[in-house]
């Protein structure tokens, strides 16, 4: 799916218009610059913030918490999804529980994580895992349905073992759907980690953003938002690139 020149041009125009409005509205006095600092001011603040080691440490800790949470949730969720969809009876038993846990907002459990685990690194990770593992599980279940029995049969005819069928038939069949789930998991995991940091923490970008907001430091608040948006976009696009590589054959 390559974008044509007019589309690219249109996108550039849209971004320019958005940033232009952000710059112009406070400067023209349409928006209160105290509430909405102009884009150039925010950019300057961001540059200044990035020069501070403390902030870079905050950014690093948030990113590491997210990556650890995702690194746990992906294999655990995938394996649980496989287990539940390969054992129909087990799947039927656990179905309601999984669906409930998938459906309820995870944030309501945050106080319990704080009570049991404190407000440190592993509490953020645990809450991140809890918030994403069911998304991965659901997408793994959907991905298993994409495995064609014919392909399994062929592999068996050529003497494939169970492990070989898992690795050479299940995995490539599941990968496109699985990666889509992974991408969602990263987005939700990011939200979860930031939320946990904003709620109760001594470190991390979420903690910083919350305190800037409480102290009415709007330029820093917006700079933080900008920074996190960039991190989210980079992660998202990286997974999407892998997704495109792995699902070219589905066209």
């Amino acid at each position: 799916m390559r974008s044509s020149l007019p589309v690219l041009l249109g996108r550039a125009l849209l971004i320019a218009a958005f940033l232009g409005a952000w710059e112009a509205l406070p400067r023209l006095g349409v928006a209160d610059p105290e509430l909405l600092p102009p884009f150039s001011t925010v950019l300057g603040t961001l540059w200044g913030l990035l020069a501070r080691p403390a902030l870079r440490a905050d950014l690093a800790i948030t990113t590491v918490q997210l990556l650890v949470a995702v690194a746990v949730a992906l294999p655990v969720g995938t394996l649980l999804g496989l287990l539940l969809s390969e054992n129909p009876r087990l799947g039927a038993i656990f179905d309601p529980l999984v669906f409930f846990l998938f459906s309820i907002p995870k944030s309501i459990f945050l106080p319990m994580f704080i009570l049991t685990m404190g407000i440190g690194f592993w509490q953020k990770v645990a809450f991140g895992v809890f918030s994403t593992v069911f998304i991965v599980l659901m997408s793994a279940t959907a991905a298993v349905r994409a495995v064609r029995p014919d392909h399994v049969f062929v592999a068996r005819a050529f003497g494939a073992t169970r492990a070989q069928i898992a690795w050479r038939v299940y995995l490539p069949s599941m990968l496109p759907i699985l990666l889509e789930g992974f991408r969602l998991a990263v987005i939700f995991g990011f939200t979860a980690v930031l939320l946990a940091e904003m709620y109760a923490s001594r470190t991390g970008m979420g903690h910083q953003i919350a305190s800037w907001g409480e102290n009415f430091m709007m330029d820093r608040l917006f700079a933080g938002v900008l920074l996190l948006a960039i991190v989210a976009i980079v992660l998202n696009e990286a997974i999407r690139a892998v997704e495109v590589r792995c699902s070219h054959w589905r066209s």
Partner: protein
Amino acid sequence: MQPLAELKPVVDEAIAPERPIIQVSGLDHVYPSRDGPVHALSDIALTVGEGRFVVIVGPSGCGKSSLLMMLAGLRHQTAGTILCSGRPITDPDPDRVGVVFQEANLFPWLTAIDNVAFPLALRGVSRAERAARANAMLELVGLGDAGGRYPHELSGGMKQRVSIARGLVQDPPVLLMDEPFAALDEQTRMAMGEELLRIWSATRKTVVFVTHSLTEAVYLADEVLVMSARPGRIVDRMEVELPRPRTYEMMAGAVFGRLRDRIWQQIKAPAR
């Protein structure tokens, strides 16, 4: 008369030098269904000589595909034995039998050459040897320059050629083919039949080919086995004494028509 009778074994050997490679005896298959047990195959006995092209033909649902899947070790019979190269077949054994399915069933995430090399990859054959052998097989089926293409970039006939190459890549003595051309259009089907005979004469494999097409059966086979409707049993067995290479013109000949008609008489009767 006496000297002639003594000569006879010698003559037989000259006509049929091939040794049996597949031996099936007393094969029965019953499987459970919602409407009670279904008797799918009944008392099947057959012998396939090495290097022969044997076609099993029968009405749909007669169990001919099931029989083939049992020869491949992919399905288990209720009773009876299947020997291949003297040893029983109980599980898939790609060293003894290669299989070509009705749908080509290529893996869409692999290129043509990787699809052909798939059985070798399962065996841990080195990358270089895999590539060389898969390439040789693609050359054999006339797709030497399509190795890098993905299945969705291949036509139906090309996919089935890749599937044949995959069935042959481990160099098994026996190739089992389950209605491999049934999903193709008429022209492609004719061309593929011709192509298959060329590949067969180049490799001298033993082929067991299942079809419901009478024309295909007579055109391809050394020997045709006719199966009845369920419970499937072998009701007739005939030698196709047409010279090789087979040609399109032979289909209009008297021998061809007679054989075709004989099969038809066998399979239409129980359908009434």
